[in-house]
């Protein structure tokens, strides 16, 4: 004990003099490429390209290949008919809870825990999560992620975060559960709180994006734009409202390297396993709970209770309350049900925006709770405020434009 920093550096100098030899260093093409991906002029287009590749591969693999190509067929033409035939007594409560609608011809609309629940968990979410984590790990291990963080650092500091906040933000577009966990790379409680609130409110998860694509395909771009603007504005406001510091961090940029296959598979496995353990039980349980709530009339009662608020403040029909409440547990249910309610196009946009900025699903809720209940309560407060302001604003704009 007790060496000063200078003494240590003296020793280090002496050691390296004896043991380290350097040749003339030759800059390689890889180094030059590495620099180009950090300079904003070239780096930002590259970042756009990488994100494009990310989402394109994600959509092709999870959407076209696994879910639409195999899972839909497997669940709808094999699993569902078999279960409907094999489960006794279609009028029983258990049938309603686990199999759902006896007349349904696809697993998306059956709403039973073993039909919709299992289909969403295994057919839709699992392939999405797998390819998502694979690409995330490759980006990480190749050394691109730190570069993206450096690139985004200046912008994100304006909303009280730092460059690495880009990681939970991208993760959140897939699923909020790992994203909330990923806020751990932020330094202070303030930063983590800001990021969690913004994640919950403005970053639509894969299921929410699915909702939008299903219900309002032609205005998704517009909705996303509103959400991104909201992300910036509310981040800026929260940064000023919340006490705490927003420290600079050292981002260490490693050289580009080929990811080691074993490392990637190992990380992929541990992340996917973590997801399966944390999120999938909630999907199954959530479907079950919502079905119970429907059966016992709780959702209908809530719909009556909140109806005046929804009708006068948000300007959407009373029937939307049920799906919105249920959306807390099952975002997929919210989509399917919203699409069956008779609404004007503008009301539809309003309710879809409400579903997306509205509270995250129960799985996210639980991981946020694990990060600290005070943060969770504060995040809920922020969320309610945002939903009210935003929902009212959209309604007001609608009235002004004469379409609501």
């Amino acid at each position, binding site marked *: 004990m007790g060496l000063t920093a200078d003494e240590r550096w003296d020793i*280090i100098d002496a050691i390296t003099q004896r*043991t380290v030899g350097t040749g003339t260093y030759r800059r390689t093409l890889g180094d030059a490429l590495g620099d180009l991906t950090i300079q904003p002029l070239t780096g930002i287009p590259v970042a756009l390209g990488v994100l494009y590749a990310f989402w394109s591969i994600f959509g092709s693999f999870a959407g076209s290949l696994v879910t639409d190509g195999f899972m839909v067929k497997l669940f709808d033409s094999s699993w569902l008919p078999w279960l409907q035939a094999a489960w006794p007594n279609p009028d029983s409560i258990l049938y309603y809870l686990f199999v759902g609608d006896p007349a349904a011809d696809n697993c998306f609309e059956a709403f039973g825990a073993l039909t919709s629940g299992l289909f969403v968990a295994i057919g839709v979410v699992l392939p999405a999560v797998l390819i998502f984590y694979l690409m995330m790990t490759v980006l990480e291990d190749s050394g691109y992620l730190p570069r993206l963080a450096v690139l985004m650092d200046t912008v994100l500091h304006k909303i009280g975060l730092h460059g690495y906040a880009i990681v939970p933000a991208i993760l959140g577009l897939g699923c909020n559960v790992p994203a909330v966990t990923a806020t751990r790379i932020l330094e202070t409680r303030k930063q983590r709180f800001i990021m969690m609130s913004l994640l919950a409110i403005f970053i639509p998860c894969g299921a929410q994006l699915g909702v939008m694509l299903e219900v309002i395909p032609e205005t998704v771009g517009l909705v996303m734009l509103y959400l991104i603007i909201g992300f910036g504005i509310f981040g800026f406001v929260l940064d000023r409202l919340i006490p705490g510091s927003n420290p600079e961090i050292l981002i260490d940029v490693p050289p580009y390297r080929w990811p080691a296959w074993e*490392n990637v598979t190992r990380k992929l496995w541990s992340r996917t396993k973590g997801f399966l353990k944390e999120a999938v039980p909630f999907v199954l349980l959530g479907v079950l709970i919502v079905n119970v709530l429907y059966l016992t009339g709780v959702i209908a009662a809530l719909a009556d209770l909140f109806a005046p608020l929804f009708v006068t403040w948000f300007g959407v029909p009373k029937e939307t309350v049920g799906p919105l409440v249920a959306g807390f547990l099952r975002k997929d249910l919210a989509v399917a049900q919203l699409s069956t309610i008779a609404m004007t196009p503008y009301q539809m946009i309003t309710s879809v925006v409400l579903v997306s900025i509205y509270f995250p699903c129960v799985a996210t809720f639980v991981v946020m709770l694990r990060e600290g209940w005070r943060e969770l309560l504060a995040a809920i407060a922020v969320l309610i405020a945002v939903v009210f302001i935003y929902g009212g604003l959209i309604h007001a704009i609608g009235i002004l434009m004469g379409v609501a």
Partner: protein
Amino acid sequence: MKEQSNNTTTILMVGNPNVGKSALFNRLTGANAVVSNYPGTTVDYTAGTLIEDHRTYEIIDVPGTYSLKPRDAAEMVAVRMLDEHRDATVLVVLDATKIERGLYLALEVFERGIPCIVALNMTDAAHDKQIAVDAAGLQRILGVPVIATTAISGEGVKHLADMIRKAQAADISAIRSRLNGQEQNRRSMAGCGGCSGCGGCR
């Protein structure tokens, strides 16, 4: 890891961020690694086991740090882990391309008088960058085993696992006198079977 059985040694892997610590960790441990959240913090660490030559080692991948004077949550955890595992062996991981920065941390660890072993990692990258590090020379000066490794390809990892049991506490004043050119009388370490691993008996 609180209740250690007699034949389990705890190994703390300490190093700067991005020196390939995790890759080396994955090379050393089997498929049984567990990612845990350090209590009361936001920092994750990984722990796994290595069984080598009938000994069981519990290996903990300590979050990357630049010094033991913590400046952020991850560094704080690194220091706390060193404090908690006083009887552990420390595996210091150096990046051969940025050896000065890593040696600073290594010296801080040495000052604590804990048994240490050094992995000189990223030797492939060093080779590409025309940097040559004399591992044996480093071992002679530091007086602890220094093993060159390339975690990405697995080079030297087996050798490192073999050498973990030869880890020993470094002596800063001895390092200084060796640097000043004074060759001390090399005394054999207690229990040393003449392995040439440590530099103490050459």
